[in-house]
């Protein structure tokens, strides 16, 4: 009986260890999914569901509004454990890898919480360092986040932090108008790709028509056109040419087949359920910003 108990306890320990090791996934910048790239209205990477749905939704709406008004791009990451356990280097690598923030303003922001490593990071892009200096970041971490973090109240800590950060950044800058530059360039490229062959072909056919088979010069001139057949199915014309160089005469017959299968009113096919064509959320993107190491790291 005693042996059975020991075996039983050992089994339980093994299961706990296994479950524990399977659960404690260590994150690095390559295995964290960027939710913003899938859905432009999402900002919070919460793979372990450490934050509640309500908090995530509130954070998403806060940072969506911040981006809409100021153009500041944010990434919030909340994980259990980081590979290497260093909040600062993780957020710097993450921010630089995805280019959070716009390229010319470097206005990216990364908020990170790693619960097992007991660290939190506010990382500011170079363009935000003036609005959210390191000292302010530290003040937010100490005054707003420290207490709830110590009590394991991660939702409250992240919400307080986000609200405070947004209050400093609100109105700091104005969102850049959506650039049409690249779109218009693409349009002109497509335009030339489509129309250049058409133009070249029409020039070629024009010259081909004017080439005299006798003297090989492009001196043929149209003299007269005769309508030979014009019925329901076909229209045949004969055109007479005269070469201005060698006075050579020739005629060419042109046959145009008429379509007899017109069906007026054959369109249709739209319809379906309203709203069913939206095709899911639109993907977000980051502007290619970079980080210079500004912000504050805090161990709670």
């Amino acid at each position, binding site marked *: 009986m005693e042996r059975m108990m020991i075996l039983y306890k050992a089994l339980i320990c093994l299961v706990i260890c296994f479950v524990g090791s399977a659960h404690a996934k260590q994150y690095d910048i390559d295995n964290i999914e960027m939710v913003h790239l899938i859905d432009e209205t999402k900002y919070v990477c919460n793979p372990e569901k450490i934050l509640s749905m309500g908090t995530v939704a509130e954070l998403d709406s806060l940072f969506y509004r911040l981006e809409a008004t100021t153009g500041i791009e944010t990434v919030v990451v909340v994980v259990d454990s980081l590979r290497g356990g260093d909040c600062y280097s993780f957020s710097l690598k993450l921010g630089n890898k995805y280019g959070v923030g716009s390229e010319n303003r470097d206005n990216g922001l990364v908020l990170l919480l790693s619960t097992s490593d007991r660290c939190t990071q506010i990382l500011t892009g170079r363009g935000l360092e003036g609005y959210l200096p390191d000292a302010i970041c530290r*003040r937010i971490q100490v005054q707003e986040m420290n207490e709830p973090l110590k009590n394991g109240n991660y939702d409250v800590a992240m919400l307080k932090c986000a609200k405070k950060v947004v209050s400093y950044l609100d109105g700091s800058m104005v969102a850049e108008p959506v650039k049409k530059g690249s779109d218009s360039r693409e349009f002109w490229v497509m335009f030339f790709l489509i129309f250049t062959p058409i133009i070249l072909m029409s020039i070629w056919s024009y010259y081909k028509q004017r080439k005299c088979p006798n003297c090989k010069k492009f001196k043929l001139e149209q003299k007269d056109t005769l309508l030979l057949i014009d019925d329901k199915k076909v229209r045949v014309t004969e055109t007479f040419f005269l070469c201005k160089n060698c006075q050579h005469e020739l005629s060419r017959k042109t046959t145009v087949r008429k379509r007899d299968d017109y069906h007026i009113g054959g369109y249709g096919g739209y319809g379906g359920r309203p709203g069913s064509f939206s095709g899911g959320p639109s993907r977000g993107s980051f502007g290619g910003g970079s980080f210079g190491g500004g912000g504050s*790291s805090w*161990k709670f």
Partner: protein
Amino acid sequence: MSKKLIAIIGAAVLLVIFGVSTYNSLVDKDEEVKLKWSNLEAQYQRRADLIPNLVNTVKGYAQHERETLQEVMEARSKATSITIDPSNITPEQFAEYQKAQSGVTSALGRLLAVAENYPDLKANQQFLELQAQLEGTENRIEVAREDYNKASKSFNSSVRKFPTNLFASIFGFEMYDYYEAEEGAEIAPEVQF
């Protein structure tokens, strides 16, 4: 005009065009290195500017640590007295500059370690914020150093590669020294609470 002459003129024109574009790209890269260097210097300056405030704050709480405080101030004044132009220095001067800056890093590390012994100081808001600024500056220095090394690497490999190396030697472009990682600099001063 003979065909030979035309060929020679054509080749000369091509050579000039190639030479100009090579020269311009080297100038661009050279400017990039200088820009990254000035950014690194600005970060060092920022750190130097923070030190007097930090020392004053610590002094108020830890009067017995005069030696450590003195050390920081000395390292600071030594580092700020050296300013260099990386395009026009000897490797020894460059090494001296690096040594002076790493002297500041280690003196600051010691000061922050000493601060651990003073709970009142650790709880002081001003100290906390100065500490955050200092850590942020150390991080910025690290990034700026990497950026400088990256720009130098790009410039140096252009200067060494064929055929750019021919033009680089004609126009007098010289390679930049790399910034070595400071001893113990990979660990920014940090206080655990």
